[in-house]
């Protein structure tokens, strides 16, 4: 099975960036790049594609859905699986709508720092077993 090594997270809230980095780097052992906006992410991700992208929906400027559509147009990033992380899941965002867009996972915020890594591992495992063809 392919190994999950590098994760990019697009999230504008610094407190969430901080705790996500601790969880993913310290407990998950992943290489983690965090971007605060869609523009930053588009510039930063293209030269070195990650294995997985975590995407907030409510971002300044271009939102997460629009960024997702842009990512699907970029050759080096179009096949990188995307997991949405949203604080609105369950009350404003419909997870099914995000899966219909093509997300491989939808996680709610606030996330539990103790189980975040395991949730991402589970999504990755499912993705590799069910979606990946290479």
């Amino acid at each position, binding site marked *: 099975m392919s190994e999950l090594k590098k994760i990019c997270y697009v999230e504008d*809230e610094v407190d969430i960036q901080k705790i996500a980095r601790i969880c993913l780097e310290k407990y998950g052992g992943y290489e983690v790049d965090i971007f605060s906006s869609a523009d930053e992410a588009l510039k930063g991700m293209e030269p070195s594609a990650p294995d997985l992208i975590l995407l907030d929906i409510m971002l300044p400027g271009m939102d997460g859905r629009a960024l997702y559509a842009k990512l699907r147009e970029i050759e080096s990033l179009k096949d990188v699986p995307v997991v949405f992380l949203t604080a609105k899941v369950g009350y404003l965002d419909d997870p099914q709508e995000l899966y219909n867009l093509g997300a491989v996972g939808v996680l709610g915020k*606030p996330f539990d720092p103790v189980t975040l890594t395991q949730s991402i591992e589970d999504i990755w495992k499912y993705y590799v077993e069910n979606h990946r063809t290479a």
Partner: protein
Amino acid sequence: MSKTIELPKFYEELTPPYLNKRKEELVLLQSCFDQGNIDHIQKLAHKIAGSGGSYGLPEISTLGKDIELAAIAGNNEELKVLLDKFTQYLQEIEVVFKD
């Protein structure tokens, strides 16, 4: 009157600065409310809703979500009640850390 919450040591370096930031933000939230800037309250509340639970404080996330929804609904009466509740929560909370 203080309300003591016990958290694992994991949060010891993380939660106190997070709480301090929320306390500093109260002034901004109140000033936005006084000026009728409900849109900014909604944005701040959304961030609060998405982060509190990750710092061991799910009540902050719940209050953030309620404030966000009241702001979206334009319900100023409810918003005032919730901002007062949020202020009280932050004034009363005391966090201790255990292994």
